[in-house]
């Protein structure tokens, strides 16, 4: 570099910066963003004397890159990726579990009804009994769907867990950046109002009111 100061060593860098770089190289972990930013800052500060046009261009490129990274970080923080792991994915998983549970219950009810019907066939004329048995067999065959949909949904839940892990790692990599963003940019979402506020169903089994509870509530108005 042109116009290098006498305080720079053989490497062309100030001894303190050289020492800091050696220290980073010696450590087993990868340098953090803060470490890199600090070193780049020191390096830029160490540039002295006449800077060539090329140097200035590199400096401008670096500055542009730093601004771009900062902007990208802000945009990602604005997406609130922590909400995905703390709210959206767990909710989606619960809904899928509820689907598996309700289809299983419904399938068992269908099977129970068919077993009852099949149990009555000895009391039917032979021709009718055969027709009923054939129909019942078709219902048994079609109840296969519960096993298949259950397995498919389990696969989707596993995929969601995988996404959750990745997003958690992304959130961790951002450190307190997202929390800072939350504090400086509170949500401006308008709470649901009017009839829209009442559209939240179907509730998950644990959250749903039983018919008896609803009847009791209705009765309380009398």
């Amino acid at each position: 570099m042109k116009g290098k100061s006498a305080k720079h060593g053989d490497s062309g860098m100030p001894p303190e910066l050289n020492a800091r770089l050696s220290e980073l190289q010696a450590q087993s972990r990868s340098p953090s963003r803060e470490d890199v930013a600090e070193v780049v800052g020191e390096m830029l500060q160490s540039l002295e004397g006449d800077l060539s046009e090329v140097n200035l261009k590199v400096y401008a490129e670096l500055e542009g890159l730093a601004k771009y990274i900062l902007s990208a970080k802000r945009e990602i923080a604005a997406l609130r990726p922590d909400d995905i792991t703390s709210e959206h994915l767990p909710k989606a998983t619960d809904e899928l579990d509820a689907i598996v549970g309700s289809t299983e219950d419904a399938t068992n009810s269908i099977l129970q009804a068919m077993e009852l019907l099949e149990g009555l066939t000895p009391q039917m004329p032979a021709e009718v009994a055969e027709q009923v048995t054939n129909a019942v067999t078709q219902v048994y065959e079609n109840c296969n769907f519960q096993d298949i949909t259950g397995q498919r949904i389990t696969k989707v839940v596993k995929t969601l867990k995988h996404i959750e892990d990745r997003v958690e790692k992304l959130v961790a990599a951002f450190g307190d950046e997202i929390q800072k963003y939350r504090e400086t940019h509170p949500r401006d979402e308008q709470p649901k109002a009017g009839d829209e506020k009442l559209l939240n169903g179907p509730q998950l089994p644990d959250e749903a009111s039983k018919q008896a509870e609803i009847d009791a509530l209705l009765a309380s108005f009398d």
Partner: protein
Amino acid sequence: MSVDMNMNILIVDDYKTMLRIIRNLLKQLGFNNVDEATDGSMALQKLRDKDYGLVISDWNMEPMTGIQLLREVRADSKLKNLPFIMITAESKTENVVAAKEAGVNNYIVKPFNAATLKTKLSSVLGNF
């Protein structure tokens, strides 16, 4: 050779509804002595405690899968010749090949119908 319609059959699946469906279809075919297990390890215990003429097992179960159960059965000197039918949603060629290499007698892909079950049972046990 006639098929022993009174033989004990063990059906293995982690979905209770599927166990119920297979049991009902077997009953329609005339097999009434049917026991159930919800994974390979439970099935293996039952197979060692009682005499069975046939195992019909799902593949995808925890902690012990159907293929692991099959390998355990074939490695057991007392159970190694037990007829074993895999009934599963795993329909890739590599699955069928792996099951065949492990010693499966027949393979049914879910969703299946009663006619397929009867055909496969006849193939393994003989006509009934």
